[in-house]
Every structure is written in structure tokens, then in C-alpha cells.
């Protein structure tokens, strides 16, 4: 077959250290799964060595969605660069903004008003539920539970409506800004979130009715994709994928940020370390998130939603017409941006997938000298070959679903 452009040459010599001798002798089959495959949840390519239908080795190949975000951010001011952070893990846009802003606030020693902190928590938890809904939709679709997909997407839309209400955008919100949030929430916000709090517990019960005791679902998930707690830690797994194996590591509890220490919630864990455990943990997490939202909304303080430090936070629109100072600050912030003191720091938040960390090195100027994103999916995916060894291709599909990877998060 001829193509209009030359195809790269692939030979077994290049990959022979990744596969077994049996594949080189032609005893086992090498199969390419992806990058365009519905159950790889994006553009993930897996090189599988198969003995019949069981997997001998599995070699993930990533980078198909690499967008050079880290390089691009170096050329932008801190405020401009935040817009790109949404595009990393596109199912956890609020969480990405939060990690980024917390790191900058740590460097600037900037105080965030209590109302803004509570709003950040509410939105981050709403986003966590929305992300888990996508996971439950796609992961159960992978094991042939079609109706879950429709139900979960229906519910997710209710959450996205709230995000649209506060920020004007369904997904790429950029609502959290250094020093607070973009603007105060509209009056409809309270009722919209309470509507979620009323309806969601029943809806999550419905999902559990469909899946938790469903024999077909149990057959596909129990005892599949096992990983022990020690191995999960060694492979750097985090989030619900780690908690499914036992450790109760959750940054919201262990290194609280944005006032998470005020709220009463539990960190669900399970000790089996299989696909079903990870399912149970995530479903329980959705209920815990609702608990946090309930508490944060009930105690939502009144007051400012962004810091009063005008060297970093732009003045309100209303002041620009009357105050010369405000006009100058506005102009300087939107042309030059703000300077961040020299030095480097690493800060992390608990995203729906695990530890989402941002490393920023500043040279004292208005642009980040270097930004590194520690994305949880990257490490969770790296452990995939350990979980799949000796299982069937059909199990592999269930396992990819259970570690809840987002390829935008892996490839950056």
C-alpha cells in the first residue's frame, strides 16, 4: 500500500528489550491496540504481546496528545498561562486551576478570603463528582453496561450547568484566579447547588443498584487487575487507584489546603486492590464530596472573593472608572503581569485522579521560568503493565477504565 508520505520503519530490533524471546521467535503475537481505540479513553497506544488471548507483556506508548504546555507556559505571564492549565486534565479543569493558583499564592504569600476558599472547595468537589461521573460512564461502558453511560452523562450536565453559571464556561472555566476567584457567584448559585445535593444521593443509589450487586459486573471486575499496596506506592500511584489497594493517602486530609481541614469527611479505602475495589472507592468518594459541598455551602461566609492586594489581583471593573490608581493597576496587570519572587516551590492538590502537583521555578520576573506538572494519570498508567500480566484482553479494557486515566493529563 502506498501512502503520500513515507512511513517510519519499524523493526523488532528496536523493541526487543520490551518483549519476550517468544515473540521474536514468532510463538506469540504482537498486537497494536490504539491509539484510535474506543476503550483506551483517548489516544493511548498499547503494544500487546499475546499468547492466545492472554497478555504476556503490555507496553504503553504515550505522547500522542503532547501539546508542549510546559514549554508554552514559559513564554506567557502567570495570568495567561493559567488558561492553558485547564486544557491539561480536561475533566478536572477547576482542580488544575486550583493547583496552579495555590502554588503561585504560596510563592507570593498571598491571602485568600474565606468566601473564596469555600467557593473553591465547592467547585473543586463538584468537579470531582463530574469527573467520577465520566469515569463511571466510560468504565462501565467498557464492561458492557451501556445504560450507565447515558445516566451519568445526564447527571454530569447538571454540574456543568453550575460551572457555566459561575464562570460562563461549561468546561474550561479558569474561574479560580491567583488571590481568589474571578468574581462572586450569582444569586442562583445556592439553589443550583442545593438541587444537586438533593438529587444526587438518589442518583448514586441508582447507579449502585445497577452495578454494585450486578453479577455480570462482578464477574468482569472482581479479582481483576490486582495490585498490592506496596507495589502501588512503588509505582507512584495516587488517588482512588491507590486507595483501592489500602493506603488512606489523601492530600485533602494529609496536607490540607483551601480550608479542607474544617470539613468533616472520610477517605474511603478498600483492601482488595482490584477493579471492583477501585469502583467502590470512587462511588463512596462521590458521596463524601456531596458531604463536603453540603458543609461548605451551609457555612459559606459572606465577604470578598479576592485578595485586596492590587499589585497581583486586578481591581473591580467599577473602580476603574473613578480611580486613577485602579486604572494604572489594571493596565500594568494586563500588559506586564505581576512579578513572582525568585525561587522554586512544589505544591499539590488531590485531583479526582490523584496527586496533581505543580512545580514552579521563578527568576523573579512576570513569566514562569519553568513549570512542571506532576500529573496523576502519568504514574497511574505506568503501573498498567503490572496489573495486566497474564490476564485477557477483555480484562485489560476493564483495568484501563478502572485507573481512570485522561490522556490530556498523561501527555501534557
Amino acid at each position, binding site marked *: 500500500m502506498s501512502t503520500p508520505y513515507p512511513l517510519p520503519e519499524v523493526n523488532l530490533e528496536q523493541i526487543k528489550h520490551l518483549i519476550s524471546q517468544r515473540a521474536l521467535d514468532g510463538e506469540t503475537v504482537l498486537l497494536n491496540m490504539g491509539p484510535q481505540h474506543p476503550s483506551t479513553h483517548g489516544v493511548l497506544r498499547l503494544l500487546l504481546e499475546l499468547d492466545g488471548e492472554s497478555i504476556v507483556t503490555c507496553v504503553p506508548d504515550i505522547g500522542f496528545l503532547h501539546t508542549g504546555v510546559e514549554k508554552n507556559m514559559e513564554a506567557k505571564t502567570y495570568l495567561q498561562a493559567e488558561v492553558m492549565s485547564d486544557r491539561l486534565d480536561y475533566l478536572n479543569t477547576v482542580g488544575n486551576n486550583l493547583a496552579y493558583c495555590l502554588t503561585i499564592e504560596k510563592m507570593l504569600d498571598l491571602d485568600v478570603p474565606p468566601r473564596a476558599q469555600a467557593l473553591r472547595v465547592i467547585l473543586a468537589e463538584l468537579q470531582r463528582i463530574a469527573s467520577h461521573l465520566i469515569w463511571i460512564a466510560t468504565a462501565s461502558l467498557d464492561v458492557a453496561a451501556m445504560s450507565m453511560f447515558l445516566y451519568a452523562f445526564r447527571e454530569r450536565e447538571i454540574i456543568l450547568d453550575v460551572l457555566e453559571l459561575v464562570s460562563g464556561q461549561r468546561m474550561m472555566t479558569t474561574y479560580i484566579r491567583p488571590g481568589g476567584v474571578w468574581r462572586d457567584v450569582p444569586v442562583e448559585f445556592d439553589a443550583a447547588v442545593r438541587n444537586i445535593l438533593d438529587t444526587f444521593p438518589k442518583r448514586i443509589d441508582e447507579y449502585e443498584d445497577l452495578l454494585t450487586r450486578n453479577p455480570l459486573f462482578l464477574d468482569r471486575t472482581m479479582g481483576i487487575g490486582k495490585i498490592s499496596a506496596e507495589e502501588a*506506592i512503588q509505582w507512584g500511584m495516587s488517588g482512588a487507584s491507590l486507595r483501592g489497594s489500602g493506603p488512606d493517602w489523601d492530600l485533602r486530609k494529609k496536607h490540607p489546603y483551601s480550608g479542607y481541614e474544617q470539613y468533616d469527611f472520610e477517605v474511603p479505602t478498600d483492601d482488595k486492590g482490584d477493579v471492583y475495589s477501585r469502583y467502590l472507592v470512587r462511588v463512596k468518594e462521590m458521596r463524601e464530596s456531596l458531604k463536603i459541598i453540603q458543609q461548605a455551602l451551609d457555612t459559606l461566609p459572606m465577604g470578598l472573593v479576592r485578595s485586596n492586594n492590587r499589585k497581583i489581583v486586578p481591581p473591580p471593573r467599577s473602580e476603574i472608572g473613578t480611580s486613577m490608581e485602579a486604572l494604572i493597576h489594571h493596565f500594568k496587570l494586563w500588559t506586564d503581569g505581576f512579578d513572582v519572587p525568585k525561587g522554586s516551590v*512544589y505544591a499539590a492538590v488531590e485531583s479526582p485522579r490523584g496527586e496533581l502537583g505543580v512545580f514552579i521555578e521563578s527568576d523573579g520576573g512576570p513569566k514562569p521560568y519553568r513549570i512542571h506538572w506532576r500529573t496523576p494519570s502519568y504514574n497511574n498508567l505506568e503501573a498498567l503493565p503490572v496489573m495486566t500480566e497474564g490476564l485477557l484482553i477483555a480484562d485489560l479494557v476493564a483495568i484501563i477504565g478502572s485507573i481512570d486515566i485522561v490522556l490530556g493529563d498523561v501527555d501534557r
Partner: protein
Amino acid sequence: MKLETIIQSLEKDFGAVAKETFGEVELTLAPENLVSASQKLRDEFDFAFLSTISAVDYFPEDAPRYHVIYVLRSFSESLQLTLRVPLAGNAPLIPTLTKVYKNANWRERELWDMFGIKVEGHPDLRRILMPDDWEGHPLRKDYPLGYEEPQFSFNYKEIDLSKPHGEL
């Protein structure tokens, strides 16, 4: 276990230099001490979790040109520690941590891919994010930030000619 005792022990054994930045502790280590220091951190002080590995390029400075960053976590004590390893600009080489932390594998491949820092003893040092035949290491400071002109119907032919298959 307090963080201070851990730092003191590393300062004594490996000549590490501690520095506090924005409330977090950074330890600067020589590359030859990296493996033994992280081994000690993992086995004696329970820093069992490697969060990430990354690097910073200080071009045009040359000695050191790169700083490789390691972020470690201890679950039992809820501690976080950052290690910094300075490397010279000419053929940078760093020992692998894959024997200590399994997930160092992909992060070190990324280090090679993005910064061109060779990792000594790595079992599978291929590019990870960029295509195999890519030239250069994008996150180096002397690598220009390029862009691609969007292809519309009015300039389709013009841009198509500049693509690899354009001459065919």
C-alpha cells in the same frame, strides 16, 4: 521523625546543602550521592513515594547548567522533600533511580526526551512524549518555541508544500 533530623543526617553523610524556599525544604546533592541518599531516605526515613522528577535549565550558565529536581514523600509522617542535583552542561549524565523507585522509569525517560539528560543505567531510555525521530530536546532554553501556521482554504497549498510530504 522530624524533618530536621532527616536533613541533618543527610548533611552529615552526603554533604547535602539544605535551603528553605517558601516553607518547603530543598536539599542540594552531588550526582554521585543521589542513589545512596535516596536509598537511605526510602529505607530509613520511609520516603517510599517518588512524586515526580523534573529539571530546570539555566542556559547560558554552564557549570551547573541543569538542576534535576526530585520530589519525595513520606506517607507515614506526611512529609515532603525536594532534592536538587546540579549537572554541568556538557553531556549531562545522572545515575538512574529505577532501582530505588520503580516509577522513576518514565520520569527519567521524560528527562532524556525533554532535556537531553542521559540517565546512566536506565533499562529503557527511549523518547517518551516526542516522536522517536524528533531532533532536539524541547524544554531546553536554547530550543526555540516554534509555531505552526494554521491551514485554511486560502493558504492550503502554500502550507502543504512546506510539510514533509510537500515535495513529493
